[in-house]
């Protein structure tokens, strides 16, 4: 028998803060452009010529010699380090700099490569080589919650004093493997997806690289105040309709963050019937009948799979910095009982809760707050 003996104080190290960020996604080749387009209600979803609407990155940056996908990822990552005012080459050569890469498929095109086809196994080594990274590194996968799970890992590495700073990268790219996969599951919307909307018909896929530079200690930036993870232990594809698994992750994150108001929620918002309804149940279970305002970005960027958690944390961090919530592209009206943003609005005082859920019933919740 293994009776629980109660919890002790969780962590010893410093609060991790997001101090630098960069992204390339369907809304733009840099974070500032993406945020401006998001605020304007623009969508980056376009017909891809095969009868599908997807969110492609502006210029396929992996067309070129060598290892262009890894080079594209490294380029975005260096931009995030530079955004924090650091010299990327020096920071990446520092053995106290950690790296956590989040992805679901890595280099999915590699499956079609002759020789030793693979997508995930060698991916971390390739990204590290492109970066010139010297410190501890790991590649994490938690299905569509991978990008936020990577932030949880960064939290552990900083608080556990393994690393002084951690580069978190979320990256996944469009590929027929994924498009046909979600299509055969019947999960794809015929047009641009419509998160939390009564007429939602499924998801739109997208691709992105998002990078966050995480440092320990006090100072300006956006603090990662709490993390929560859970599993539904139910279905492999469909989420637990009660929202119980996600609610558990949210409660864990809020408990870890301590007291304080939640000003808004950056939802997973895939626009599938099952996901959005499950999320609404989870938000009501935690916050009651009037959850905080909810926004989602997948109607603008598409569902970027392993990157989405990192990209949504980035958007949440900018929203905290700007004091502004973006509209939810694709949403017109919904009866899920959620206050979904239709236009930019001032962020109510408090933190932003960012949540993701993935196949296998994996859930991650992050509590982010501005740090002055």
């Amino acid at each position, binding site marked *: *028998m*293994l009776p629980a*003996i109660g919890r*002790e104080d969780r962590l010893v190290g410093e609060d991790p803060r997001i101090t630098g960020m960069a992204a390339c996604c369907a809304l733009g080749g840099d974070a500032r452009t993406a945020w401006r387009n998001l605020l304007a209600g623009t969508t980056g979803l376009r017909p891809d010529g095969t009868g599908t609407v997807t969110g492609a990155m502006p210029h396929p940056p992996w067309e070129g010699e060598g290892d262009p996908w890894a080079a594209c990822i490294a380029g975005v990552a260096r931009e995030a380090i530079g955004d924090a005012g650091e010299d990327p080459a020096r920071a990446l050569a520092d053995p106290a700099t950690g790296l956590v890469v989040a992805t679901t498929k890595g280099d999915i095109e590699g*499956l079609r490569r002759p020789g030793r086809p693979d997508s995930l196994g060698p991916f971390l080594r390739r990204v590290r080589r492109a970066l010139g990274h010297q410190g501890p590194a*790991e590649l994490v996968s938690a299905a569509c919650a991978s990008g936020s799970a990577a932030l949880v890992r960064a939290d552990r590495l900083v608080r556990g004093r393994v690393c002084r700073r951690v580069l978190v990268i979320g990256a996944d790219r469009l590929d*027929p493997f994924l498009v046909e996969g979600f299509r055969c599951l019947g999960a794809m919307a015929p047009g641009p997806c419509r998160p939390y909307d009564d007429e939602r018909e499924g998801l739109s896929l997208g691709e992105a690289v998002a990078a966050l530079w995480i440092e320990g200690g006090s100072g300006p930036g956006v603090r990662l105040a709490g993390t929560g*993870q*859970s599993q539904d*232990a139910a279905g492999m594809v469909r989420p637990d309709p009660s929202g119980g698994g996600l609610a558990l992750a949210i409660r864990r994150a809020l408990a870890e963050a301590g007291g304080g108001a939640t000003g808004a929620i950056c939802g997973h918002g895939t626009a599938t019937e099952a996901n959005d309804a499950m999320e609404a149940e989870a938000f009501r279970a935690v916050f009651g009948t009037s959850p905080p305002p909810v926004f989602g970005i997948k109607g603008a960027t598409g569902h970027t799979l392993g990157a989405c958690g990192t990209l949504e944390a980035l958007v949440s961090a900018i929203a905290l910095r700007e004091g502004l919530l973006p509209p939810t592209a694709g949403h017109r009206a919904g009866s899920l009982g959620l206050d979904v943003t239709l236009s930019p609005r001032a962020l109510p005082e408090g933190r932003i809760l960012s949540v993701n859920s993935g196949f296998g019933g994996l859930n991650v919740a992050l509590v982010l707050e501005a740090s002055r």
Partner: protein
Amino acid sequence: MREVRLASTVMVDLRDRSGPGGTCRWNEDGTRAAPDPREFFPDLDRPARMDLPSRFVLAAGGLLPPLPEALRDATGVVLGTATGCLAVDRDFAATLALRPQPSLYARTLPTTAGAELSRALGLRGPGLAVVQETSPGYQALVAAWQEAASGACDAVICGEYHVPPADGTAPWVVLALLVAVSCDPPGRLLECRYLGAGDPGPGADLRDLLGSLGERGPWQREVLLEGGRWRVSLAAVSE
């Protein structure tokens, strides 16, 4: 930080199963049949359609000592793998030009095997896979230790699965149960300490952790994870 103990380990390969209940054999006839997880989880839905990593991981998970109901909400699963779901990926990729199979696509994730184990055991703690060429099992052990030590969960089933496409190497799974709560028997105190950046070199797989359990004295091993050296140590067996 909380103390974390290694409570139990199990191993499954194509021929042997080793765990607290001893070692037994199957596939004596030399076939390469994967274990049938219904032996441990009779209520499983359509195990024959399950991917190989899930079948091996479930067969190993079924050998672990039963977890009390109260602990299941706070028990996570963190698995490392170098092979991930490559075999399933290739199978699904082969169907793309014909008729893509939704049941196959849903399993094209390295987290599938861990999620199946969580579903079978009703575990609701963190779920994660780490995928890398160098020492993925030890990387999972370190991540699991950090989760338990940080208080994010009270117990973690961690380990490594190596279930490659048919490339001549044999599949195997090692699982370890880490607990940050009192348990009987008490298990051995586990510590993971970061020693600094390390040059690329040969990694280690988690099977050598099993060898340590035959020794009653303290045990430690320096292992190179991706980009960093770690010391993994176990206290002596308590009398």
